[in-house]
């Protein structure tokens, strides 16, 4: 057993140290697993939505007397029905918004549902219901009606995984819409975003909108990333410390749009 475990540890270290390429053999089982989990995740994510409603109802009803409880349960049933209808309506509205967004971006895009979260919670990734069969590939940009969501890091036949922009491994080129100061948006381990490498002489204020520059060739220029929440000059560094509040509420994300056409990088200019 010790020999087997040692070999497994060495293999895991090898995977880690070499960094598995998406087309490598070691990545194939991972994509097959994603595919195997997809149908269950689709069902589970629907059940989870209903389960969430149930939990909230439960907490609301704690402490209420028996009779009151019975009446409230009846009311809750009716409300659940109403919520389901409202849910369908909201979903329709959301899809219509996504269609509008696609038209506005003038690019080809695929709509996808969010069907799962990150398995450990330490990284910020989401599982989506669209894959290669829908024309989706690794590295494509994912957006929502509110703004930038992230980019695809793994794609199987019918599902994919998106690395959110607030993950600490994520980075994208962006600029301040008002002052045109450019920087790199990166995720923060606790939560939120930070804008790095912005010179101290730049004019950035809380409330400023941060948008994508399009320089990375992934995100279309001008997509909303978030708004500046805090600017400081603490520490001895050359750059400003800028905190950015994401435009997208990642926890409530249900539908997203995957941009299937690569974005041509705009010409380089000094003012972003």
């Amino acid at each position: 057993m010790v020999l087997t475990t040692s070999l497994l540890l060495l293999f895991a270290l090898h995977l880690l140290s070499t960094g598995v390429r998406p087309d490598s053999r070691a990545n194939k089982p991972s994509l097959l697993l994603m595919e195997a989990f997809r149908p269950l995740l689709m069902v589970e994510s629907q059940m989870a939505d209903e389960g969430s409603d149930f939990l909230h109802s439960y907490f609301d009803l704690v402490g209420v007397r028996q009779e009151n409880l019975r009446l409230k349960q009846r009311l809750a049933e009716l409300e659940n029905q109403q919520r389901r209808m409202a849910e369908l309506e909201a979903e329709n509205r959301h899809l219509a918004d996504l269609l509008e967004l696609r038209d506005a971006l003038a690019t080809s895009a695929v709509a996808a549902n969010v069907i799962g979260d990150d398995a450990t919670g330490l990284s910020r990734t989401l599982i989506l219901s669209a894959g290669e069969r829908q024309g989706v590939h690794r590295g494509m940009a994912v957006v929502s009606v509110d703004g930038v969501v992230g980019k695809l890091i793994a794609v199987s036949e019918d599902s994919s995984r998106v690395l959110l922009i607030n993950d600490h491994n994520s980075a994208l080129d962006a600029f301040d819409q008002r002052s045109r100061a450019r920087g790199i948006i990166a995720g923060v381990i606790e939560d939120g975003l930070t804008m790095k490498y912005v010179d101290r002489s730049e004019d950035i204020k809380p409330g400023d909108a941060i948008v994508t520059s399009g320089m990375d060739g992934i995100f279309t220029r001008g997509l909303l990333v978030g708004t500046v929440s805090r600017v400081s000059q603490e520490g001895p560094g050359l750059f400003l410390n800028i905190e950015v509040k994401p435009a997208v509420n990642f926890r409530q994300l249900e539908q997203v749009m995957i941009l299937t056409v690569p974005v041509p990088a705009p010409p380089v200019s000094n003012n972003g």
Partner: protein
Amino acid sequence: MRLLLLFALGAFVALILQIILPRLLPSGILAPDLVLILAVDLGMRHPGALTAVLAFGMGYAVDTFSGVELGLNALLLTLVFLFAYWLSRVLMSTSTAMGVIIVFTGVIFTDVANYLICSRFAAAERLHMIMPAILIQAAFTALLTPSVFRITAWGSRIVGLRQYNRNR
């Protein structure tokens, strides 16, 4: 073989729950690491070459749905499996209480290692900011350990496996 299939099925269900649960929990609370409980159970009560491979496989499956480093959770879960095996042999105990302690320390170890390796140790000085969430997750996971052990024991009985003596 029946044991492997039982735990593979358990890992499948546990992983599904880990992917779904975060949406139900309040912000800042990490979902319990159910797969790790299974790895500890395997290490303590069913050590062997094949179960080590299964622990590695469970970690690899977690890697499929978490983070960007393929192999990281495979490495960490194999280490937890090995630690559970070693500690249960050294202390000559495979009791549930021992399992709870190993799970608690195992969650803290895997989370801290995950955090440090993913950030290439660049965010080590900010570790204290995420520690409360990790400790809550470790406590929550440890609390669920007796129930998961009972479920695996029940599953073992159902598929006709010999029961492990918990009082050893």
